């Protein structure tokens, strides 16, 4: 177990042994209780998550039935993956680069907000948390359209930058900058809230002690606060990076026709606009999923699963 994991347990005030009911096991009748509690929810996840994923895996290995649009047959067409990758590899690379940059930006923007909520907001804590979630109710589509207006050539940002000759291409919308800006904005709450919830559990006395020990705000933050908030940072980066890498709305509304499309755009158009595109879309979905799972595996190997599960 890593130092990180023990830091979490300290922060949450729980210990592995605390999860384990001691007396509950002694009572025979209660042995079935956990399963009764689990069955409805897990059945839902099996029926509407596992089974669909298996079906999608099957579709990714199917071929078009010649002459019957919309019909497919299973012939273990592994080459679907090769064909999908050779056509859409730039989309996949863009997805991960855009999502990576957006995740780093969201961390830089979201951490101070989470920190202020946890340590500076006092009784305004919950109100600030509500304010972070409230924009969801305007709908992220409307807010992304608003960003298109804000970043448009005649909008305040681009026109100011252009007047100062600071915008090389002359545009922000229709470029990757706008797409990354949109991703950063839209997934910021998913970065902020997990960091907030791990900061909130830290006893302020520990930070005070750090302050007495190091007598320097920056060192205290670096040596005490940041390490103790790592579980939240890990969860936040995943909750930002994963949905951002699969997003297609920002690229659709803020990007250009060709050079800023992400893998999500490719999957969406193969599903809805390309006749017989289901196998390609399914193969792309699984490629995206596989890359994410590999990254997730590396991540949990490095930082431990206790922080995530």
């Amino acid at each position: 177990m890593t130092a990180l994991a023990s830091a979490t347990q300290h922060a949450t005030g729980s210990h592995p042994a605390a999860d384990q009911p001691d007396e509950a096991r002694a009572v025979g009748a209660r042995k079935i209780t956990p399963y009764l509690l689990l069955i409805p929810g897990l059945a839902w996840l099996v029926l509407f998550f596992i089974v669909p994923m298996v079906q999608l895996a099957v579709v990714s290995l199917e071929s078009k039935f010649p002459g019957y649009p919309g019909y497919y047959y299973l012939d273990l067409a592994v080459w679907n993956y090769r064909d999908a990758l050779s056509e859409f590899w730039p989309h996949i690379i863009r997805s991960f680069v855009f999502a990576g940059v957006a995740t780093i930006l969201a961390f830089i923007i979201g951490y101070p907000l989470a920190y202020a909520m946890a340590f500076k907001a006092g009784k305004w804590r919950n109100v600030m948390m509500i304010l972070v979630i409230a924009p969801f109710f305007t709908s992220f589509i409307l807010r992304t359209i608003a960003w298109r207006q804000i970043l448009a050539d005649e909008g305040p940002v681009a026109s100011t930058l252009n007047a100062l000759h600071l915008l090389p291409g002359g545009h922000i919308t229709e470029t990757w900058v706008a797409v990354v800006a949109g991703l950063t904005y839209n997934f910021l709450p998913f970065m902020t809230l997990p960091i907030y919830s791990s900061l909130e559990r830290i006893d302020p006395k520990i930070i005070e002690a750090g302050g007495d020990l190091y007598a320097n705000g920056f060192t205290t933050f670096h040596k005490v606060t940041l390490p103790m908030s790592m579980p939240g940072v890990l969860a936040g980066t995943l909750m930002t990076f994963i949905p951002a890498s699969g997003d297609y709305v920002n690229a659709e509304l803020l990007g250009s026709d060709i050079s800023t499309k992400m893998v999500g755009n490719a999957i969406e158009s193969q599903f809805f606009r390309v006749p017989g595109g289901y196998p390609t879309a399914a193969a792309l979905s699984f490629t995206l999923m596989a890359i994410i799972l590999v990254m997730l595996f590396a991540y949990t190997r490095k930082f431990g699963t206790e922080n995530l599960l």
Partner: protein
Amino acid sequence: MRRLRYWIADNFVMMSAILVLLYLFLPVAYTFVFSFNNHGKSNIAWVPEGSPTLKHWLNPCGPPGLCQSLVNSLQIGALATLVATVLGSMIAFALVRHNFFGRGATNTLVFLPMATPEIVLGASLLTIFVQGYYRVGLELGFWTILIAHIMFCISFVVVNVKARLLSMDPKLEEAASDLYADPRTTFWKVTFPLALPGITAAALLSFSLSFDDFIITNFVSGDASTFPKFVYVSYLRGIPAEANVVGFSMFVIAVLLTVAGQLIQNRAAKGV
């Protein structure tokens, strides 16, 4: 000198947090301003002639389908929240309060939907709905959206309720059983009230996620519409400013309701 530095450091954090909140609200403010736009076909460019106008606020249900999509979103959000909160909390209680075979697998099964991009969830649900589940009468529409939303909300509920249960002091429940409370009484009188803030937070998050979901909804909705889908579809054809009226109003209502809830909770806490 040192105190001055601390003061700057302290307020620097709060000031940057306020700037970040303003950044979060900037597009919401834009949505509000453009709800007064006397626009032409699409509400994208500001039209100075005749603006600002109140006409969109006076007839928000004018554009066909807008209010129906809002009603769908609210119904799906409420039902998905209810079902996901119950099912997810049950899983969380089982994980934290019981020891059983298959715990690790359960944790993984709960975690995986959150680690799956929405587009993959949407694509997989679409394939199973059109290639298998239609045989048992599940046509794409309101119910398939609801099923999908419950699925992705369950994981968020489990994580939130679990965190709350883990942070609770087990001594409180031990004290209850020491006082001869049977397990059922202990649960309803001690455990559940203590877990309630976590459950409420999970329910609020579920409703927000369901209400704002577009990608999964777009895959499984067929002809049915939700508010985000209405906005997206009409963006391609010409978006009406009434959508801004509805979007901004929902934002205000959400803030007012949650702040009111907070005030009631504060008052109740004081009363005890």
